[in-house]
């Protein structure tokens, strides 16, 4: 295989990586949650429980009404983070 072909493949594979975040705030929200959990302010499992609850509530609405007006994944992620910070008294 030629170098050019290999480079093209690697480039294609690199592009494969996009669409992890749709907007910069999603990346910041993710990083805030990860850093706070790594610093021991809460465990990732505690965060995941809130995230699952937000996603489940959204799924129910979507299954019933067929709308996504109540937000996408990182909206749920941010709600879960805000809720957990609230519960822990970290954001007052």
């Amino acid at each position: 295989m030629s170098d050019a072909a290999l480079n093209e493949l690697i480039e294609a594979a690199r592009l494969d990586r996009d669409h992890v975040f749709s907007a910069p705030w999603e990346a910041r929200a993710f990083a805030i949650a990860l850093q706070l959990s790594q610093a021991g302010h809460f465990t990732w499992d505690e965060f995941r429980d809130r995230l699952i609850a937000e996603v489940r509530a959204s799924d129910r609405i979507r299954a019933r009404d067929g709308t996504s007006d109540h937000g996408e994944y990182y909206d749920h992620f941010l709600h879960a983070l805000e809720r957990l910070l609230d519960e822990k008294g970290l954001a007052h």
Partner: protein
Amino acid sequence: MSEDHHNTDDSGPAARVKALEALLTEKGLLDPAAIDAIVDTYETRVGPRNGARVVAKAWTDPAYRKRLLADATSAVAELGFAGPEGGHLVAVENTERIHNLVVCTLCSCYPWPVLGLPPVWYKSFAYRSRAVSDPRGVLEDFGLELPGDVEIRVWDSSAEIRYLVIPQRPKGTAKMSEGELAAIVTRDSMVGVAKVEAPRA
């Protein structure tokens, strides 16, 4: 969702995140430089290239393949891939008869150290709700039509177990090196929604 959360919805998510970051930084709970480092790590350093190296090694090193199938967490750690959300990794292998597909029906569980963060479609309601009930239809949406006699196994990820699909090595790649093979392994193939294609000569 509670009333107090509706109140915060008045401003957009970008403004809320910015306010949150400012407040937590002021309280000494967050280090903005570390936030930048985490974003950089997950945007550019940890990603499906790691998993592709694991798959290419499994294709070319039978002893490694055996170790990967027996204990994927340890096998990927041999290549230096570990970290958050990487515990209890299970590798599942595609064959002529079996095709594996990974989903997280509850939210977004995904093996970060080998695949990075999940793509948008993996977290979508459409994918999460259909992967279990209609895997063949989901694969067709991704442009993958499997013969009727191929069994599709769907693995639902959880906080406890994450999955990595070892796709089939495509025909016509016998002369390729491990590094060249790693370059053709895609993220989608390691989630099970695509096959690995041999490069066109």
